[in-house]
């Protein structure tokens, strides 16, 4: 179980996050929504151990990450704002590289498996710089999953994806849920995720204004979503 409690993040006297707490259980998908500047990306970076909170605890499977983050990192799969990809290397080489870093056995099979999951078979040996934004995003997602992490953290995964790719993504998320992964998705597009979503966290100017299991009040969740959508 992934737990964060009372997370605060200050950056040169700006309070970016204020007293955020959440729990992620295996097989659960949490959606984090909020306006621009609400602190969603920062929250995801903290969850991904890419940033340290100013105060609060981040505890993953009972390991305190502030003390031993290195034990936890192999269990996280992260899709951040930037893709972590190497433009001059091919799709295959990128996955191979990260696979080697994660020391995956049977790397070749694993790569082929992921490539077919995200639908990039045709461009397997093309360099990344010629791929479209959507294809790079799909590759980035594959990269995030290459080591079969227990927790999957995605920052705006739908960016740049066309309709077909979005479907692929949702199938993927559904499968990950079934496999018992804990998933957090930061997004602006809540609508498509309603079916898959278990918990909803709403951030506003760094504050946690709503955090509930969707099943508890599905109407309330829909309401919140509508109000956010209307404001846009």
């Amino acid at each position: 179980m992934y737990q964060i409690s009372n997370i605060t993040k200050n950056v040169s006297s700006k309070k970016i996050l204020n007293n955020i707490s959440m729990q992620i259980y295996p097989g659960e998908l949490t959606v984090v929504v909020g306006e621009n500047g609400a602190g969603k990306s920062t929250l995801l970076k903290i969850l991904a151990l890419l940033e340290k909170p100013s105060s609060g605890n981040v505890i993953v499977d009972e390991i305190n990450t502030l003390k031993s983050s290195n034990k936890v990192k192999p269990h996280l799969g992260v899709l951040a704002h930037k893709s972590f990809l190497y433009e001059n290397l091919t799709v295959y080489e990128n996955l191979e590289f990260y696979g080697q870093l994660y020391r995956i056995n049977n790397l070749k099979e694993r790569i082929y498996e992921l490539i077919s999951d995200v639908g990039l078979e045709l461009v397997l040996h093309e360099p990344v710089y010629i791929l479209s934004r959507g294809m790079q995003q799909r590759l980035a997602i594959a990269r995030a999953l290459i080591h079969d992490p227990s927790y999957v953290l995605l920052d705006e995964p739908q960016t740049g994806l066309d309709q077909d790719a979005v479907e692929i993504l949702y199938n993927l998320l559904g499968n990950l849920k079934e496999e018992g992964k804990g998933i957090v998705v930061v997004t602006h597009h809540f609508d498509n995720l309603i079916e898959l979503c278990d918990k909803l966290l709403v951030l506003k100017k760094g504050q946690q204004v709503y955090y509930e299991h969707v099943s508890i009040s599905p109407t309330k969740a829909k309401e919140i979503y509508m109000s956010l959508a209307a404001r846009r």
Partner: protein
Amino acid sequence: MGKKWGYILGIITLLTIIAANYLIFIWVPAEKVMGIVQKIFYFHVAAAWVGFLAFFIVFISSIKYLLTFNEKWDWYSAASAEIGFVFMSIVLATGSIWGRAFWGHWWTWDPRLTTSLILWFIYAAYLLLRSGITLEGRRARYSAVLGIIGFIDVPIVWFSVRWWRTVHPNLMESGKMAITTKMSITLSLSVMAFTLLYAFLLPRVVKLYQLDCTIQKTKDVIIRNL
């Protein structure tokens, strides 16, 4: 530091400077060989002492910053670097003039002057690095790292140049200066005067950095609430 202590230090500094100047220009007789130009020696050595001391302070503050991440230490590093850079420039200028008077050359590659030159470059690099980074946190961390690495280098520079000059010693150095008791007293007082000046200036420059930081933060708050 209380304002009262600041004033007291300021007055002591001023008095010491006046006393040192008196000793330099009126009390101590000019050195036989070089004449009155030799007196620049007192400024040169005193400035060198402070220049190196200031860098040592940069080194200590940098370590303290990396240990605590308290921005106060970053201010001390930056302030000391600024002051040190100025003093180092004085060292090079006075050293050059003195060299011209003593050995007839505007520049010599003797160990002390060369090490001072390198330290001057390291100071410049430190200040340039700071001015190139806008994120305060990153700027403080990177400067601290450079402060530590730079300081470790100085003794290595000193030894390497010394070995270098023993191989090619002839070029310009010859003859040493005879130092009388009066000269040592004057020199000590000059060193004290400059050190006090440094101690007086340092907290003031630190205060400037502190105020600058406050202004930045206020700006941020205003912009955020626009």
